[in-house]
């Protein structure tokens, strides 16, 4: 209220992107059933997407007026964006997560989760390898027992190693 919010790097682009997404969704909502009736399947989707567009316009205006957060001395705009929003650890961790999800169905839950835990703990700066290995193993064992044995969730076994590891 008292302090005017500064605009973060990338904020304008994000806002414009969301506005474009909202407009696209309005079109998609219209495609459902047009304006055929007041109780058709498309009424609420249209209302929701139209609300998104209006709200986004209300967000865009102050975002344009807000002062941009000043970059640090000698920092390019990209560097500023990277430092504030996508620092290296975050990108690496997200990539590791994506890889983990991709591996889940291929090498199975146990192997992929263990690898992910150990690697990402190291990535995030926990350098005590022994501790990482033990904590990951114990936590995974507990998760496995709870989900697999008690809750009978059929965790992915992995298509590549089927028959080798079960």
């Amino acid at each position, binding site marked *: 209220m008292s302090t005017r*919010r500064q605009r973060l790097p990338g904020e304008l682009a994000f806002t414009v992107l969301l506005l474009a997404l909202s407009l696209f969704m309005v079109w998609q909502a219209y495609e459902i059933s047009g304006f055929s009736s007041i109780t058709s399947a498309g009424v609420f989707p249209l209302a929701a997407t139209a609300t998104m567009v209006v709200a986004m316009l209300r967000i865009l205006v102050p975002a344009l007026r807000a002062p941009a957060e000043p970059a640090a001395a000698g920092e390019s705009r990209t560097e500023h964006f990277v430092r504030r929003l996508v620092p290296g650890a975050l990108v690496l961790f997200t990539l590791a997560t994506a890889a983990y999800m991709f591996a889940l169905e291929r090498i199975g839950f146990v192997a992929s989760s263990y690898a*992910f835990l150990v690697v990402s703990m190291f990535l995030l700066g926990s350098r005590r390898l022994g501790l990482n290995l033990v904590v990951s193993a114990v936590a995974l064992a507990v998760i496995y027992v709870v989900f697999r044995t008690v809750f009978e969730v059929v965790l992915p076994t992995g298509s590549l190693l089927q028959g080798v590891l079960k």
Partner: protein
Amino acid sequence: MTAALDYFLMSWLDPHLMFLTAAGTFAGIYIGAIPGLSVTMAVSILISFTFKWDMNSALAVISGIYLGGVYGGSRSAILLNIPGAPSAVATGMDGYPLAKRGEAGAAIGLTTVVSVFGGFIGILALAAAAPLVSELALKFAPRDYLLLAMWGILLVGSLSGDSLAKGIFAGAIGVLIGMVGLDPMTAEPRFTFGTVTLTAGISYIAAMIGFFGVAEVLVQLHELHIKAVRQDVSKILPSFGLIRKYLPLATRTSALGVVVGALPGAGGDIAALMAYDHAKRTVKNPSRPFGQGAYEGLVAPESANNAAVGGAYIPMLTLGIPGDAVTAVIIGAMYIHGLKPGPMLMIETPHLFWFQVGSLALANIFLLIFGLTGIRIFAKIVEAPKPILLPLILVLSAVGAYAINNNPADVYWMLGFGVFGYFLKMYGFQVGPVILGIILGPLMDRSFRQAMISAGEDPVQFAGEFLTSPLSAAILAALVLSMASQSSWWRKLRGKRDMHEPLARELEDSASAGNV
């Protein structure tokens, strides 16, 4: 009457039943705390495994799991800002800021006490007024559900942080996510882009885990090297004075919880959100501003969602109509055990009713015991080093998202929503309204269309029905009053608050000037 008392005390006197109730409550707390493990899931698994047991044993475990599970959702909401269940979304709003201040122990303690209080109000309503409440619940027409959903969606205003427009956008995108898939009424595809996978819709648990769990993990990566706040666990039990102070609020929100819980089309999640909204609108001087660790922000939703448990049993036991997904599964179990849940159940097997009331009451006592022990260990979770904690949360989130539907696609949705939620959070959007939209959007869609069709698709007739039906008119009046009490002209009318605000601002300014 003595027969009723005998059945009421059955689970209290039989060590076997007592053990089962205790085990159920204990397990329920942890099931509730883990996002992705739901009470509905636990109960449906129990049913195949209690198939050979007698019905009483099965009902005793289920009572425990249900009460424990609804409470357990608050644990992860307070400690990690990841609600363990949709009914705990509101709890995190003020619970997590408390944990950040090192008051996780006190927050969990207070939550436990008010949850148990709400639970008892729900059980009391079940025991004393079940037929009355269920008749009231039947009176709710589609337009009344629409009013309730609108009441809930107003909470966007409370949850949107410093930009209302951003809150509204987040809420609308939540409604949009809730619409994806085949329309439940006409089976027309909505936002499926011609794909088969999207016809099933987007699992809202996957969305919740993504927007809260994964996005929160990503935000916390910025604070990797900030030392975690030490948690003060010396004072867990709230003082009597504190409890007495919140008793009126907790009673009001519990009553709300009972009624909303008893409605066949709404449950504890909506009750908790409405209760939070109620607290925010009526409490004049919260212990801290809402959203920054107000105790009232814990008391209201947590008493309401546990009161909703007793509420949900009301239509189930009196009419055989499920009050929510969990009671729907219990009804299925009753059929399998040779009972016939329906309006005749209380007449043909009154002992079952009193046994159920008794085991719920017993489970509620166990909830108090288990809820207040082990908090120390739990609070330590927050103190764990982030490089170890965050990957563990992520794996748990992934399994949880997967477990809901055994669907690997849900895990990708979770990650997608997580990354999107991260950028939303960084650019000043709140993710609370998204979940609000996902929960309430489909309810609004359905009830609006049913109400409008019932009114012959005539908008005038539709609007008129809100005034001609006494129940709708009453809800509408309450809704308008609660909104009006927030508006500036109302305050001017009362002529109090506006006087204080400039003064407060002046004080704030001078304080910040002093700092410089």
